[in-house]
């Protein structure tokens, strides 16, 4: 990968900061988030990589990632983060950026029979607008 000459614009960085009110710059890549993420196997970018891409300003990679839609906000990462960055919240921030303006989503839900209603509602809240 070559780091592009133009990384995320300041208005994009501000947009994210407004949503999550967290300083991802605090991340020192201890990778504890990734080591404890129960969904890690399914992800294309590990949680620590999502934090790192955020810092590098490579937002496009994040917005196109599969991981955003794999994260179930179980908060295992957030609760263990030694820097209190809350990776789950950062992921939520990017999801929100997509759902609000870009109007796209990677998720097409299937509703199995007998699934508890909370799952259906959660899906709608998390992945649709």
């Amino acid at each position, binding site marked *: 990968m070559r780091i592009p000459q133009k990384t995320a614009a300041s208005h994009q960085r501000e947009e994210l900061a*407004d*949503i*999550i*009110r967290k300083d991802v710059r605090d991340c020192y890549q201890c990778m504890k988030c990734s080591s404890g993420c*129960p*969904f890690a*196997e*399914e992800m294309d970018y590990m949680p620590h990589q999502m934090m790192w891409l955020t810092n590098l300003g490579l937002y496009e990679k994040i917005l196109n990632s599969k991981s955003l*839609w*794999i994260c*179930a*906000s*179980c*908060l*295992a990462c*957030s*609760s263990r983060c030694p820097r209190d960055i*809350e990776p*789950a*919240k950062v992921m*939520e*921030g990017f999801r*929100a950026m997509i759902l609000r303006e870009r109007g796209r989503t990677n*998720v*097409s*839900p*299937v*509703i*199995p029979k*007998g*699934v*508890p*209603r*909370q*799952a*259906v*509602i*959660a*899906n709608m*809240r*998390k*992945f649709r607008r």
Partner: protein
Amino acid sequence: MLGYYPGCTVRAQKEDGFEQESLAILAALGIKAQELEEWECCGAVYPMAQDEYVGLLASVRALNQTEKEEKDGLLTLCSACYHVLKRVNVRMKNDEEAQKRVGNYLEMDYKGQTEVYHLMEVLRDMVGMNSLKEAVTEPLKNEKIASYYGCLFLRPQKEINLVDGENPQLMEDIVRALGAEPVTYPYSTDCCGSYHTCQEEGVSRQMSLKLVESARRAGATQMITACPLCKYNLEKCQESMEKEEKLPIHYMTVPIVKAMGGMKTLERKGEAHAYSAENSSQSSA
């Protein structure tokens, strides 16, 4: 008197008996709860985006309603409702911007005064483990019970603050009080796959299976949970197994009811409590 918030899932799955059993247990132990006159769905997930306030409204309405009805707190059974209501309440307590915006929209002044309780919290803090133990008439001597918490009761620890997020013992204490043996296994705090059951089915299936297998290896004869979705996922992942291979997944109320002598006994006790309470309130009046 506690306010009671059933939540949509628990109410929709009334035939599961979770609600009925929970209320019967509490009544038999002398805890009174009354459903809120008005409530709506909490939203099932806590809105993490800090710049959004719409997601808070439904929960704030229920919390405010509790205060309006002069209840001593709000009881929930479903882990998602508990999680969402409690976190929204924390936010309303600490975030002045949220107080202002939500207050303007709902035309009410709510600053997080209501306490949110879960069934197991009530058993610990209002009933007490000793009283629960005393109420057990048929100890579950041969049961080895694996308690499954899932994410929603544990994280974030600072806001939920129900148990130690990495080493919870509350459900285990309840199991002990019932005379059964609590099973220790490493995955009691891991995610079951949650709402992914509605999309990448493989994802939640694998994760739930890992939890069940871990509990089985640790010698569990059954698993208990307080979340309808967790229960669903833990059962669903065992779908293709032979019946005798399956590890039974129960709501945490099931072993309690059994140890306390069954629903009939509980209902009788509950009525007796109601009667004596009515009498005492009459005599004091």
